[in-house]
């Protein structure tokens, strides 16, 4: 490829951030899609692969005794510290990677060259796995109160909205169009979630173009229609997720928020989640703390505090809880918006869905939720995740915050989620990796072509779902039922080491309870099978009885004790032993992976 100035550099050092003694020497290869570091050590073929699309920033540092350092920061929070022998080589690698990691057109993205061994028909089927209509019918839609509107079929009313939208039964096309003209980017109020039990709905939109005094009859009618579609309630909430000051400032630009006097029976509420720029800087600060070489406890806690990150996570979760309570406890519908309605609104609606509906806490449900509230409703993935070279001010970890909110909830409710932390981390990684077509582009309209030539992450995750199952989850467990009522006391929010320090192996627990339980469960499954087959054999033999029934029968037969200690035939037990033998030095994930 034309951007690769130097395909191979020998005698490159990969430095270990924590202990310099663990540094490795090897060969660095640049390919069209990956940077590959192959360790020289005889016997081991230890390879580190880094996707160009995951590279976030490159930094050349002053030469040291071990060479010319090149620091690579990745979007999945991996940090690679290379030392390259010669300055020219370092320069070449730097320039090559700079270009390779900042594609200028969609065509260059990895998803278009990622070709797993799957034929085209199968590839198309991958995309059929996700079906949002099925989720709406799961909610009981369409029904007497909500209908599927064809208004945006050709993305004419709002080019950033999906084609299929649910609106109140009484919302006529003129009302929809009129309301859309009074909303930023035409993003009129539409349904995000509907609660079958009590008819309360979560709706979403962008801010109204109200300025200091503007009104729009159709928009007022639209809210009235939403209110009426919930027969049990005589008012609705309008939640502006921005801090009040920000919203007021928007009025000067002809935007703003709803005036309670103009809309009948609304209760208006500010929630105060900060904007994308604040969030970007906050995460940056937190990551700097994560990367400190050997921080003291104070360095770490002070850094964490001053980054403000956990405060923002709490704000998002608090907002989700407010909406959940309105819907589930008061039975009141809510309209949520921020400025454009694709960042904070997406966060808050999807967090509320996770709290409200156990379905969204299943593997499939979380995928559906991300598809619905993020992908289809036009969260600008390509801008926010910096898929292409573009405006750095558009980049923001909005989706990271949603995934973290789910993780924080998993910490409080360990049995409530069907999936594990690995599932969240894998989704996070692929949102940035551009390996799959799901997150390419900024809205559904831009994405239509993409699906025809790429693979779907959802299908991949579903195929490999055994890796992502939480062993503590049981569909009939009490934690699984109904809505979650998390505590939002500050001490309930933890630093997510599993994501932000994911690649610093030394700091994670050396034994994983989850992996242990998974192994036990695998073994249990084998035992169940053995038991079934034994019972079958024993059934054919006379005089043998189920061991549960009566042990005395056997002792009467004399105890010629030829005990065969149970050893499952396949790898589970061995796995378990190996697991403990190696546990101290290797993480179990690695060990069990090696064995598979």
């Amino acid at each position, binding site marked *: 490829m034309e951007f690769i100035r130097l395909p191979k550099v020998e005698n490159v050092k990969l430095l270990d951030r924590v202990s310099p003694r663990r540094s490795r020497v090897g060969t660095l290869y640049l390919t069209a899609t990956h940077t590959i570091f192959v360790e020289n050590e005889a016997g081991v073929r230890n390879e580190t692969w880094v996707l160009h699309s995951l590279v976030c920033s490159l930094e050349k540092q002053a030469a040291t005794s071990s060479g010319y350092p090149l620091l690579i920061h990745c979007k999945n929070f991996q940090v690679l510290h290379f030392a390259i022998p010669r300055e020219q080589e370092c320069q070449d690698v730097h320039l090559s990677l700079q270009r390779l990691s900042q594609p200028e057109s969609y065509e260059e993205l990895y998803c278009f060259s990622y070709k797993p061994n799957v034929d085209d028909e199968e590839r198309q089927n991958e995309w059929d796995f996700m079906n949002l209509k099925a989720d709406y019918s799961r909610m009981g839609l369409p029904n007497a109160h909500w209908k599927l509107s064809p208004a945006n079929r050709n993305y004419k009313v709002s080019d950033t909205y999906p084609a299929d939208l649910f609106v109140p039964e009484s919302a006529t096309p003129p009302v929809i169009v009129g309301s859309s003209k009074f909303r930023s980017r035409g993003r009129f109020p539409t349904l995000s979630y509907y609660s079958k039990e009590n008819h309360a709905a979560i709706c979403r939109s962008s801010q109204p173009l109200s300025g200091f005094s503007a009104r729009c009859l159709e928009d007022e009618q639209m809210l009235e229609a939403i209110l009426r579609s919930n027969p049990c309630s005589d008012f609705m909430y309008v939640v502006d997720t921005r801090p009040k000051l920000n919203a007021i400032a928007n009025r000067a630009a002809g935007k703003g928020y709803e005036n309670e006097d103009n809309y009948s029976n609304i209760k208006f509420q500010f929630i105060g989640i900060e904007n994308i720029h604040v969030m970007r800087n906050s995460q940056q600060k937190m990551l700097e703390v994560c990367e400190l070489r050997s921080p003291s406890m104070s360095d770490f806690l002070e850094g964490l505090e001053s980054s403000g990150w956990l405060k923002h996570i709490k704000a998002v979760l608090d907002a989700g809880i407010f909406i959940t309570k309105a819907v589930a406890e008061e039975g009141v519908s809510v309209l949520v918006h921020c400025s454009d309605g694709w960042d904070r609104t997406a966060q808050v609606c999807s967090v509320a869905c996770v709290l409200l509906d156990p379905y969204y806490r299943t593997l499939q449900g979380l995928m559906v939720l991300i598809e619905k509230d993020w992908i289809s409703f036009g969260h600008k993935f390509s801008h926010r995740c910096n898929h292409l070279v573009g405006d750095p001010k558009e980049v923001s970890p909005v989706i990271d915050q949603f995934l973290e909110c789910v993780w924080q909830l998993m910490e409080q409710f360990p049995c409530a989620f069907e999936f594990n932390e690995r599932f969240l981390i894998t989704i996070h990684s692929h949102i940035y990796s551009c390996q799959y077509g799901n997150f390419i582009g900024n809205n559904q309209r831009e994405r239509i072509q993409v699906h025809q030539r790429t693979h779907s992450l959802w299908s991949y995750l579903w195929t490999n779902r055994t890796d992502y199952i939480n062993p503590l989850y049981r569909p009939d467990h009490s934690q699984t039922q109904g809505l979650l009522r998390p505590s939002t006391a500050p001490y309930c929010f933890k630093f997510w080491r599993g994501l932000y320090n994911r690649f610093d192996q030394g*700091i994670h*627990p*050396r034994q994983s309870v989850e992996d242990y339980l998974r192994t036990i469960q695998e073994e249990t499954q084998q035992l169940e099978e053995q038991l079934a087959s034994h019972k079958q054999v024993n059934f054919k033999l006379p005089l043998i009885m189920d061991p549960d029934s009566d042990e005395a029968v056997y002792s009467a037969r004399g105890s010629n004790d030829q005990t065969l200690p149970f050893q499952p035939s396949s790898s589970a037990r061995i796995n378990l032993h190996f697991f403990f033998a190696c546990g101290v030095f290797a993480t179990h994930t690695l060990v069990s992976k090696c064995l598979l």
Partner: protein
Amino acid sequence: MEFAELIKTPRVDGVVLHRPFLPTVEGTLCLTGHHLILSSRQDNTEELWLLHSNIDSIEKRFVGSLGSIIVKCKDLRVIQLDIPGMEECLNIASSIEALSTLDSVSLMYPFFYRPMFEVIEDGWNSFLPEDAFKDLESMTDEWRLSEVNKDFSVCPSYPPLVAVPKDIDDETLRKVATFRHGGRFPVLSYYHKKNGMVMMRAGQPLTGTNGRRCKEDEKLINATLRPGKRGYIIDTRTINVAQQAKARGGGIESEANYPQWRRIHKAIERSNVLQESLIKLVEACNDQSHNMDRWLSKLEASNWQTHVKEILTTACLAAQCIDREGASVLVHGTEGTDTTLQVTSLAQIILDPSCRTIRGFQGLVEREWLQAGHPFQQRCAQSAYSNSKPRQEAPVFLLFLDCVWQILRQFPCSFEFSESYLVLLFEHAYASQFGTFLGNSAAERAKLSLPEKTVSLWSWVNRHQEIERLTNPLFEANSLVIWPSVAPQSLLLWEGVFLRWNRSSKCLDEAYEEMVHIIEYNKELQNKVNSLRRQLAQLETEDPLLQTP
């Protein structure tokens, strides 16, 4: 003294009890010499039995004639009693205050407590130094058990029997004792079977400002070195603090006199600083403001996590010297009764798998804390809610337990016991019906005749039901050294102690039960399969014509 003198109002009806996460209970409040009891007199409601010695402080509030007493316990729980009648309330409050601050040890509850269970094994005899020495003898003949301290005259804080190098006679020990703080001459703390290296502990050397020297001391610790090998002295104080100690007669081992030893200074805080830290941490945890910045800055300002990190780091260092460097180690701070013990006991958790069992951990607490002379009574007299000025109180043992919990979190399958064991030890160190943690040293315990007059905590713990409750279902014996991470990201707040009364643990408890269920079910199936196999094998021997499937 009669307790009755202190109890002006022994009984009040219509008292309402508020507890975290439990429904309020209305009932009759009774004060006895050792307990505060609230009974609803209904069979199915739980009653409150609170040891007076568990009460750290109380607060009184009055609204009209209704008084409230807020009882703050040493286990960090806070409960409220609403008492009708001003006079009753005042009487109850003053009685609680008096009964919870009894000065005389012999009036404490353990002297009155009679066990309601059958003592199968008397815990007072479970961990005798001579038994521990037998284990040592099976590994090495380089050590002997000295009786030099049998009447506690050489070192008042040491037990009557201590392990010392074989070639060092009692006369030498007496001389060394005069050169070490509190007479705490270097004794064996741990023998590393893998390579024969040892860990010793002592009080600081009393070099003073003019660099006093003690040849016997040098001889003693050099006797533990292999020819040509160097050892490490880990001083738990910073070099500055250690230098300052010289002015008060203390000091450090100089390079000139101890050429075979390398001295390393660490910075583990002591006494008042730790007590302050605990108070601040608990205050932060009880802050209701729901403000994230405030929580994080208070957590940071408490410095609790800093202490945890510092102690663990030092313990790892000691363990590293022994296991990785193959060197012997001497650990001391000032007195050798606090930070020293944190380091030596944690290093053993890291190095020695037997310390990670339920019984082994008791042995460790017994050897490295109780017999080693950690002044439990002074250190645990007050906890985080005390209003009185701290004297010698300090959460030294709690910090140790917190560090063990951190390692347990990082190696959840390598400990035979679960978190509840550590919480139990924390509770009993501060208030207990058992005599184990009374007194400040073996000498005091002997003087109080604790083994004769009180029941040992170990007698109660080492019963089938308790062991079962404290056992970690994930345990699989791990014979390796376990190196914990001390990165700030790896060290967590010990919620089981510090947030125990602030947040409901229902969901976490359910997860724990679920985990137990998964493991139990697996065991059950294993048993079934084994039993079926046995039958099959038996049938085959009886009838050779039958074929295995």
